[in-house]
């Protein structure tokens, strides 16, 4: 099977974290502190893990940790009855903070198991690296048959090739510029802070959107349209987003019908802009929407820009503080009013 957890013989950081998660889950389930423990287990494909809902302490050994633990598991929390333990990375906990602030889950129902994160891998990026510098023609094959993780690299095997990629070269874009790899809120922190990736200044994440904003308006719109046009309206971005928890999304309203499934670009734009505006001041750039998109639409262009606008306007970064009001529920005299969010 494909080991995405990097458990070699040496006790690497990931191994220590994985052990920590398993022990914590066992303890929490045995003591009855939680009814369910949500973490990651081995997936069925190389470079994949899958969410695991553990209810028996003995099943805790299924839990894994590694750079393929891509899903933001807090997406499952608003629906939960009972007490739940959840594994969170630095970004995931910030969506959880928002869920708590927005009364979607009460703080005492959730045991936050924080993991010092060293970044997760981006499968699209891996395909690109394999294609441009590696052994296969880009996007022409499903190349990888098995994968192994070492401390710093991935060793990918496919038909007639073995190829090593440095993890650093294939991190998810959100991870590359992550400012909060260590969870800001937790009940238990697995391992210690030194195990996390070095935090970047949050400004580093805005370089791309700033560059994009400098383009001519027509160039911006044509890029944006080209991206959105590809949308197949599967709503995976919405479904993967922990903060898109509305019981009925505006896109699903029939009366009035805001969004048509008809092939209009304008409907697709309306959906994406509508969704982005709904997560303004809440989005933490965990990248779940981008990863879920089956056709690879550059959704971070929108989310990252929104994050930047919020930060510049209100000096607010979402999900860092558990004792404040949500941004859009709060008012300060010095709030600017020179724009419409």
């Amino acid at each position: 099977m494909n080991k995405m957890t990097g458990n070699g013989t040496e006790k690497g950081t990931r191994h220590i974290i994985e052990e920590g998660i398993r022990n914590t889950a066992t303890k929490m389930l045995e003591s009855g502190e939680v009814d369910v423990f949500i973490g990651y287990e081995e997936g069925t494909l190389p470079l994949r893990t899958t969410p695991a809902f553990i209810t028996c302490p003995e099943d805790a050994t299924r839990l894994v940790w590694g750079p393929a633990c891509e899903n933001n598991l807090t997406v499952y929390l608003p629906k939960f009855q009972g007490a739940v333990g959840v594994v969170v990375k630095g970004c995931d906990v910030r969506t959880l903070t928002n869920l708590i602030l927005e009364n979607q889950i009460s703080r005492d129902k959730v045991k936050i198991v924080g993991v010092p994160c060293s970044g997760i891998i981006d499968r699209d990026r891996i395909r690109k690296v394999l294609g441009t510098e590696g052994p296969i023609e880009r996007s022409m094959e499903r190349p990888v048959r098995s994968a192994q993780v070492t401390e710093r690299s991935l060793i990918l095997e496919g038909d007639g090739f073995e190829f090593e990629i440095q993890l650093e070269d294939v991190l998810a874009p959100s991870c590359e510029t992550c400012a909060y790899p260590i969870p800001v809120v937790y009940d238990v922190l697995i391992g210690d802070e030194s195990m996390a990736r070095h935090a970047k200044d949050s400004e580093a994440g805005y370089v791309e959107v700033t560059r994009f904003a400098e383009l001519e308006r027509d160039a911006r719109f044509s890029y944006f349209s080209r991206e959105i046009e590809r949308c197949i309206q599967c709503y995976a971005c919405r479904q993967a987003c922990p903060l898109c928890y509305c019981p009925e999304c505006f896109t699903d309203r029939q009366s009035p019908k805001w969004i048509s499934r008809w092939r209009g670009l304008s409907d697709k734009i309306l959906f994406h802009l509508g969704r982005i505006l709904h997560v303004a001041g809440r989005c933490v750039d965990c990248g779940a929407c981008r990863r879920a998109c089956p056709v690879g639409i550059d959704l971070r262009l929108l989310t990252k820009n929104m994050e930047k606008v919020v930060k510049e306007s209100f000096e607010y970064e979402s999900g860092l503080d558990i004792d404040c009001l949500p941004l859009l529920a709060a008012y300060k005299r010095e709030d600017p009013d020179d724009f419409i969010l």
Partner: protein
Amino acid sequence: MGEDTFKGLLKIAKEDLDVLVDAFAKSSYVVLAPVAEGEATKFGVIGGMRIKIPHLTTRPVKELFFPQNETLFSFDCSGKADSTIKTPDAVTPDGVIPDAVMPDAVATDGISPRVIMGVRPCDARALVLLDYVFASNEYKDPYYTIRREQTVVITFACPRPGIACFCASTGGGPYDETGSDVMFMESDDSYLIKVISEKGRRLFQESLPLLKGGCSECPCVIFEADDTDIRAARDAKAASEQLLSANCSANVPIEAAVDTLGRSTGFSDPAWEEIYRKCLGCAVCTYLCPTCHCFDIGDEETNDYGERVRNWDSCMFPLFTLHASGHNPRPSRKERFRQRVMHKFNYFVEANDCIACVGCGRCVENCPVNLDIRQVLSVFAGGVFA
């Protein structure tokens, strides 16, 4: 598949593929093949581009027959138009009916003949399953049927099935000919060509003379395959099947799962309570599925003009079954996930005597949370997927 797979084969060098495509185009066929769209791939008109065959396109070929959106007819209430109800007169090569419409019944001659190159055997097989729905003896959907009739499907056998592939478990295989008019098989630097159907024969009859006319130095790029070629192709097929069966996914216990789901207890099996849990409720699995075919019909209107449209729908969405009263018979993701599995592996079986899955692995690969249908089926088969 018997030994006759390799009888009467033609042969073309890989580098001459584009010459053949030109000949198809010259004999008035529109040629479609995999095209890149951002990070994804789908089938589209290739124009003058070189053909590149990916392992499997992100989007299946079904949308060229059953597009995500199509106009069934339009209506005009302004009082100025000649006719109040109009039906589409043409279907563009990429399967979209243009907005221009004309009176009377659905025209059957509005679509030019097309060739789709580079379809994989799983996708071709899926078309035969879609035929049960849209082109059965009982009911023929004119929009779908005309596209099927006017299309020659050229399948490329899979020399290297991927890690998510499980076609052999669903009754197909990397060299399965079901649904193909012509099949290309890789053999070293060449493709061996097997003409399967009458439509395929016609395509070659019409195109090959043009091929000869196009090049006087070397009159033909198509040859008859000799014994060496056939041996190579046979080896490639064996290697492909070997690769697939070495694949941990190749042996999905579908029959046992179908049996469990078909019992009176299948619908209420306790496994449903757990198995759906990680499902996010998006439509990736259904929209990228080559056999999913659910749709919604509605009207798109402006003041006095409107179109009756058919759009893809997904059983993963709550809106799919929401009643006007507000009641929803499939209130949670559990019921919705069950519906998808039951439709493919029970209801479709009851109606058509075959499962509605071709093992392409798109849902496996693209599910944002790796909820793997092979694993689901293994659970119902009483085993563990490993």
